[in-house]
């Protein structure tokens, strides 16, 4: 659309029309996004146990955060969870996409199968996986024992619970990464690949030298999305471990929920929530800068 066309369209249009069309969205945004955010900021400076009126305590909640050992553990858990899930899911998704990009028998069916876990609700995934990884009757340990191995404690031990969660979340995520990568692969002109093949580049060289750089923008988008997904992952963890055993799988978002509803520290929960928003914003900005730098270098 050229700017001139746009101006002409606008001059003919009734002046009220755009506001009418965007009005409902604007009102809903105001009532259920903006107002709650403003209240959240206000709450973060209050000390309130219930939903009633709290006392203004200035920056106390933020000072508490600095000295809170549980918060430190939650942040560490969040890092472990994110670093465990994001690169793994992306790598598997990329491998599947590359494998399924070329003509193969049963390719359509295979793509659909890899995608199926995306359809299941987080809660459904949570209960199925709790059952599969049940240490006494679960099929995972039954299979291990059938192979003559010892069963693992999975979700019941602080040492394996996080690993199990990472495994489950990666399972839900690979279909998404695969689909996005497949779309990007199909937009790489086939002449480029053929030219590289004629020049004698091996399959691996073509992958490293051609496919990976061409996919860089997609990788960058997927990275942001996956990190955001991981930072916001709640349902699966809530159902499978509730943050335990002990505190071993309590990630930041779980800690926010727990502070608000189990510990009844609404003000502190609001402050923690804003910390999470800050982390998300910083990450997005860093990522954008990195992408821009990479573009300048090229």
């Amino acid at each position, binding site marked *: 659309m050229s700017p001139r066309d746009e101006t002409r369209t606008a001059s003919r249009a009734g002046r009220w029309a755009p506001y009418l069309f*965007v009005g409902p*969205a*604007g009102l809903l945004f105001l009532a259920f996004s903006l107002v709650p955010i403003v*209240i959240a900021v206000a709450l973060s400076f209050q000390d309130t146990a219930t939903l009633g009126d709290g006392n203004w305590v200035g920056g106390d909640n933020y000072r508490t955060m600095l000295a809170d050992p549980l918060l430190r553990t939650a942040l560490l858990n969040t890092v472990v969870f994110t670093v465990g899930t994001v690169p793994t899911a992306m790598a598997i998704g990329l491998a599947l996409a590359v494998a399924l990009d070329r003509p193969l028998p049963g390719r359509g069916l295979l793509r659909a199968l*890899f*995608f199926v876990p995306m359809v299941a609700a*987080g809660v*459904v995934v949570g209960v199925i996986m709790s059952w599969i990884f049940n240490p006494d009757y679960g099929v995972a340990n039954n299979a291990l024992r059938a192979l003559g191995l010892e069963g693992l404690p999975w979700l019941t031990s602080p040492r394996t619970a996080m690993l199990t969660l990472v495994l489950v979340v990666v399972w839900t995520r690979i279909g998404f990464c695969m689909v996005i990568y497949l779309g990007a692969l199909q937009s790489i002109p086939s002449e480029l690949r053929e030219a590289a093949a004629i020049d004698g580049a091996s399959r691996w060289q073509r992958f490293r030298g051609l496919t990976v750089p061409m996919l860089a923008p997609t990788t960058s988008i997927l990275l942001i999305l996956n990190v955001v997904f991981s930072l916001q992952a709640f349902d699966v963890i809530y159902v499978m471990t509730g943050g335990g055993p002990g505190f071993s799988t309590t990630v930041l978002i779980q800690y926010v929920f727990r502070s608000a509803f189990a510990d009844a520290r609404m003000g502190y929960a609001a402050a923690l929530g804003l910390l999470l928003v800050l982390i998300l914003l910083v990450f997005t900005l860093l990522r954008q800068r990195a992408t821009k730098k990479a573009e300048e270098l090229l």
Partner: protein
Amino acid sequence: MTATAAPVRPASARAVRPRRERRSRRRGWLLAAGLTAVAILVVFPLYWMVVSALTAGGQSQSSEFSLWPEAPTLGNFTEVFATQPVWRWLGNSLLVAGVGTALSVCVSLGAGYALAKYRFRGRGLLYAVFLVTIMIPIQVTLVPAFLVVARLGLVDSPWAVILPTLFDVVGIFIARQFMLGVPDALLEAARLDGAGELRTFFRVVLPSCGPLVGVLVILGFMNRWNDFLWPLVVLQGNESLTVPVGLSTLTGNPAFSSPWGAVMAVATVAVVPLLVVFLVFQKTFVQGIASTGIK
């Protein structure tokens, strides 16, 4: 998402390199076999859900186990439907997802149209502010949003679930991207014919938005059907729960000596409708989910 046609090579090239061709075809089969093994692993948990749902006690009675239901029974289903208000949960989920999606798609279409096709004061700011909300996780606004809903007297009503999720940034974003592609000439022609703004939208713009509406409906319905945290907070009575929230109450429910059979039965009931929709509208489904990633 069906397979696209294999690149056709001229017959002469094939004749020149028969051995290489044969080797690459064998490799193709090997790869397909490997991928099939991975695919079985990926689908197994859902298969296992169905098997457990069809087995008495969900196979938790003994350490013996079988990979398929040896004596399939609907006992788990009849038990859980008799003791828990599962039909109510399904009805609530259908209401929340159906009405919520219908209204939300309308909101998104309108907003997307305004942001794509009109120039008005505050457009850029409004769009930027909308997009920022993608970064704000629901847990941050959970308590305040609950306060708002409580002030409106909606706690425990389906509207408490529906209203706050009607504003859907991703939906608005997808709608705007699509509407940018609607040719201005089309709108101009309608206006020259004397059509008003509303008529132009409903008679000219909307009819060309079929694929967009498909994506928005499927995506919106799936997200609402699967939503958990917000319904968990605003719904309280057992009768008013949605399926995912109801399901989450079952694992620790003392009413069942061994809850797994019942849990897997309800999990099956929760997933199967979406699986059917997915299989029927696979292409729109995948397109929809992919379009949330292409920002």
